[in-house]
């Protein structure tokens, strides 16, 4: 089965609200990355975590290797946050992450 299970697959938010995306791992991961694919198709690196939490503006991410999950919290969602979000996790050795299937986020006015 998939090593990285990402949920939800789709998410709709009104401007100003927030929610959380989650990735569960079927094996112990050493690190996780979160990306956003924007409307032009570019992949934007949001976070890299080997443990704990990181925050950047309205985004906050957490990674728990022992419990095998990572989350990405979005607060005060804006229209420009729309896009597809991916997590990617690495189980060790030379860095070769496995991606989740993505969460398609649409932020409505």
């Amino acid at each position: 089965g998939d090593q990285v299970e990402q949920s939800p697959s789709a998410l709709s938010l009104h401007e100003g609200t927030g929610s959380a995306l989650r990735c569960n791992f079927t094996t112990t991961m050493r690190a996780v990355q979160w990306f956003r694919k924007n409307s032009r198709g570019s992949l934007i690196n949001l976070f890299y975590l080997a443990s704990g939490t990181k925050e950047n503006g309205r985004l906050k991410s957490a990674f728990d290797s022992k419990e095998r999950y990572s989350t990405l919290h979005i607060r005060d969602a804006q229209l420009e946050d729309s896009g597809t979000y991916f997590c990617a996790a690495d189980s060790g050795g030379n860095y070769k992450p496995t991606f989740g299937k993505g969460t398609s986020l649409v932020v409505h006015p």
Partner: protein
Amino acid sequence: EAAVTQSPRNKVAVTGGKVTLSCNQTNNHNNMYWYRQDTGHGLRLIHYSYGAGSTEKGDIPDGYKASRPSQENFSLILELATPSQTSVYFCASGDAGRQDTQYFGPGTRLLVL
């Protein structure tokens, strides 16, 4: 800022034809990767490389070859393109020593008719 470029950005190919996708990075990163991204599958690793002269099979290598002639360049080759290879292809580079991020190219849209 890391710079990874891909060419072409868009490509239409015929079934059975040969397609070469090129990737160039100016960051002196050891590692480079080729992914394809399809709806419902996320990004899947096709081939990767640890440095010039090295190529390794990823999770879905069938139907693809790779070439790493130099630190800067990593190519993905479809010798006999098939419609199932219609996808968006992303190249990425990363520093094996730091392992703290991957830098992605803008993507190549490939349509195989």
